[in-house]
């Protein structure tokens, strides 16, 4: 395992009395592609801005290679940022934009030329040196912003929803390009997004946040397959979340029936939340299913059909390539490994009560 480059310790930040970031602890390893994921207002951008030095934490520490950098202004941190709306210098051409950081460091002219040329090649904007940034498309502007940050060879690159303003096709392309670049240049990427698909596609590690609190840290596969709580299950992908009771290890009861599962380590008869992903449920003939239900809606989604099946008062969402008629009676089946059991979330209201 490579060493920790950034550590956040008990980091807290409030705006007008509301906690945007609430006592966060997190470490980021060298060369890691880590994504802070969550809905807007979850504290992901505030966390990023504190790492960049644009916001001061109310309490807690930010360590960079083991050294506390709380009081270091942004221009003294060996970290560069790609801003959401690119924030290019509109009074300069592409070359001057990229040269900005190098000029401040008084880089010799020939070395500067060489490094900028290399960057333009990396972001595939060769020959654009003299172009005015206003005359570039969104994707090109984004790539200038990337080159402007990377040319300084920072140890850490912060990316604040850098692809949010691009259209779907370009966004997909840029996702791949960013992942390639990260591997090629060997820089730690801290990426902020609210797009769960983007997070799962690009990251080594995903940090799911909500209400200023980290909900789960893990690899994309872990986060998707083993969501820790209701929020993560709901936010990452589509899910059917049911209330159940863990009878004993490997046996859970929900929807009025007992099912075999692969989870253990709960107390006897502990109330739990059960997640079944829509693509893990198979539709069968009524008599062959574990559960019986009636199809209430079918929507064509391109690759698959999204069906709602009502069974015993609960609507199951199912993704399948086989279509069923609305109103038809069907059976639902799933395997033990498709059932994900999570500890029941104690909500704020319950806590207060």
């Amino acid at each position: 395992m490579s060493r920790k480059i950034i550590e956040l310790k008990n980091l807290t930040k409030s705006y007008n009395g509301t906690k945007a970031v609430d006592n966060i602890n997190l470490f980021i390893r060298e060369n890691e592609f880590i994504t802070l994921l969550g809905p807007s207002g979850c504290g992901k951008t505030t966390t990023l801005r504190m790492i960049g030095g644009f916001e001061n934490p109310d309490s807690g520490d930010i360590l960079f290679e083991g050294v506390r950098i709380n009081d270091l202004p942004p221009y003294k941190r060996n970290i560069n940022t790609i801003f959401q709306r690119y924030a290019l210098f509109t009074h300069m051409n592409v070359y001057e934009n990229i040269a900005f950081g190098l000029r401040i460091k008084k880089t010799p002219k020939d070395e500067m030329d060489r490094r900028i040329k290399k960057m333009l090649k990396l972001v595939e904007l060769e020959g654009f040196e003299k172009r005015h940034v206003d005359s570039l498309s969104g994707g090109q502007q984004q790539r200038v912003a990337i080159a402007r940050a990377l040319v300084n060879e920072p140890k850490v690159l912060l990316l604040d929803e850098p692809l949010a303003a691009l259209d779907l096709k370009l966004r997909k392309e840029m996702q791949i390009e960013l992942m390639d670049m990260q591997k090629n240049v060997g820089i730690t990427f801290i990426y902020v997004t609210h797009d769960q698909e983007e997070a799962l596609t690009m990251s080594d590690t995903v940090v799911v946040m909500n209400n200023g609190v980290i909900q789960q840290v893990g690899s994309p596969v872990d986060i998707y397959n083993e969501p820790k709580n209701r929020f993560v299950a709901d936010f990452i992908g589509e899910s059917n979340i049911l209330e159940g009771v863990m009878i004993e290890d490997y046996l859970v009861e929900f929807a009025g029936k007992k099912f075999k599962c692969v989870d253990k380590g709960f107390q006897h008869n502990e109330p739990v939340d059960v997640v079944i992903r829509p693509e893990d449920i198979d539709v069968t003939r009524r008599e062959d299913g574990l559960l019986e239900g009636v199809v209430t809606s079918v929507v064509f989604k391109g690759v698959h059909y999204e069906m709602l099946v009502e069974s015993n008062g609960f609507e199951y969402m199912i993704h399948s390539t086989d279509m069923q008629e609305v109103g038809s009676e069907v059976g639902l089946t799933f395997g033990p490994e498709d059932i994900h059991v999570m500890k029941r979330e104690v909500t704020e209201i319950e806590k207060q009560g």
Partner: protein
Amino acid sequence: MKNRAKLLAYPYIVWMAIFIVIPLLLVFFYSITSGNIYEPSSLSFTLEHYSKFFDMLYLNVIWKSFRLAIISTVLCLVLGYPVAYIISKSKQKHRSLLLLFFLLPIWMNFLLRTYAWMAILSPNGFLNKALEFFGLPPIEIMPGQTAVVLGMIYNFLPFMVLPIYTVLSKIDKNVLEAAADLGANSFITFIKIILPLSVPGIVTGITMVFMPAVSTFVISRLLGGGKELLIGNLIEQQFTIYRDWHFGSALSIILMIMILVSMAIMSKVDNNNNDDEGRTAMW
């Protein structure tokens, strides 16, 4: 639809024709003719009014007008830029109030404001009373050029502050953060980012101060005590005292051309700043 929308422009076109184009043509017409303006048949073509202008007497007047206007404009810029910068940096809730303080004088009558400066600067005015109170010798700046310049600065400063403030407050905060992110301290950020981005506001401010300053006749008459004759006073005198509409018109045309030339030079500076890639010029 498109043609209907065009109809909406007609009232303004008519307005422009009646109150801008025709008067301008008339002024030009008077400037190249001589005779009795009430008897069209007596008018004849001449360029003598223009050649009359090239007399040291009048050249000195226009030189002085430009000199005082340039001094006032430069001082307005030096005083106004920091003010605009500070207001744009202040907290949102204080901004409107601060701006109001600087714009409040415009709400008062122009003449009234200038008369107030007479009361302050005159030999027996508040300034000398205050100096006397502290046992200091009186200063005599009014009537004189210093008083005229002070009057110009006071009257025109808001027109410098406002456009610069507008441009500064529109600069994306992200851009300044990007500069800091790339290693620029606040001084470098100001020199390399804020200042260049505020050039359009500076150009507008200079235009809006310089034009009224170079052609004013009220300030120079009240604070210059009739000693400091500017081009504005000269033109005013031709129409009101000497009744020489022809020479007055020629002077107006000359002043217009000179302002036009100075503005063209200004916008050239603005464009050079915005380097390559064809940007549309103001002129």
